[in-house]
């Protein structure tokens, strides 16, 4: 078996994943990146999106929302505001959230309200990411 790297996904509500994995793929600030074992120390911000990790032939999908990740000493730690496995995602809720976010976005762009627009955009992205991840599993 190839060398493995320790993956930890930590949210304010506790650790979600704490496992040894082969590879981690994550949505970084400047694009998606993959991390293998013994990666150099690395720190990046994370966009809302899909995090995947492989253990042998098994692949797990995780929806994560913004935060950052740190690689050091053969350990990769994600500090994100929320993280959900594909199976746990409530698709109906995500769907409703998407509609709500779209409405808010339309309203905010009409009034040229920058703060509400960024918030609505973030909510929309979260909803879309949730729907995408849940479809994959």
């Amino acid at each position: 078996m190839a060398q493995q790297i320790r993956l930890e996904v930590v949210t304010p509500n506790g650790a979600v994943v704490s496992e040894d994995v082969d590879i981690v793929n994550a949505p970084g600030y400047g694009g998606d990146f993959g991390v293998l074992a013994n990666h150099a120390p690395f720190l990046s911000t994370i966009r809302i999106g899909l995090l995947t990790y492989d253990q042998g032939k098994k692949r797990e999908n995780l929806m994560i929302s913004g935060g950052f990740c740190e690689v050091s000493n053969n350990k990769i730690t994600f500090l994100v505001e929320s993280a959900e496995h594909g199976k746990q995602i409530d698709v109906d809720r995500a769907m409703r959230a998407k509609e709500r976010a779209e409405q808010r976005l339309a309203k905010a762009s009409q009034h040229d309200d920058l703060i509400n627009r960024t918030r609505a955009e973030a909510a929309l992205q979260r909803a879309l990411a949730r729907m995408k991840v849940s479809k994959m599993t």
Partner: protein
Amino acid sequence: MASLKEVKNKIAGVKKTAQITKAMNMVASARLRGAQSKMEAFRPYSSKFEEAMSNLSGGANTGSFPLMEVRNVATVEIVIVTSDRGLCGSFNANINKLAEKKIKAYEAEGKKVSIVCVGKKGHQYFKKTGKIRKSYTDIMAAFQMFHAREIAQDIAENFVNGAADKVEVLYGHFKSVAIQRPAVQDMLPVQPVASEQASDKKAISGDYIYEPSTEEIMDVMQPLYLNVILYHAMLEVGASEHAARMTAMDNATSACRDIVNNLTLIYNKARQAAVTGELMDIVGGAEALKG
């Protein structure tokens, strides 16, 4: 002396109060467990966050971030985190008292003070002063990270606009189930987290690759850091509130027991006096009949 019936009614009433306070004690202890586990769950996140912050702030230039800007302090904003509900002893009163002391001290220095209240009790206490800028009430029962985020965003905006030059958070620190103390933490401007541990570790693991640059990462992390501080304060207040209520209700229950004991004594005395009086009447009547 009170009549027999009055005393009896009073005993029944106090016993019912004791039932309520006892139930509240048990509810509070159950909630405390929940609040404590929430705090435990948050600990790895916050400790990791602080570690990363201290790694980062080593190289960064503090002057270039709006949230780190140190200005001459003309206005101080105090964020007062209290509980929404009362019946928890002097817990909220202690926080409010400390806040009032702080406000007086700042005003004596000629600074202006504005208040942001999280939790209803602080709002009720300070609403007549007219210093409240914003209040968030009825959220302490079931709050999530995003509640803290909303509040932190608002506070950060206010700071960047120049409406406040310094922000402090006042909350009830959960020291143990028996002890909760009001505590103060600086929130803005963000202070560079410097710890010696971090510099040691850096020597071992070498320099980090940053993506994007340290400055841009800091830009993203600083608002998150505010969330962490505020969420942490709210968690502490949540746990402290329930612990304080447990103690208060326990005291109330034992006070009720004391009162019932005293009242029972009075009741028995009154009963005995009544019986004696009746006996005297009967004996007196019998003597009279004998003639």
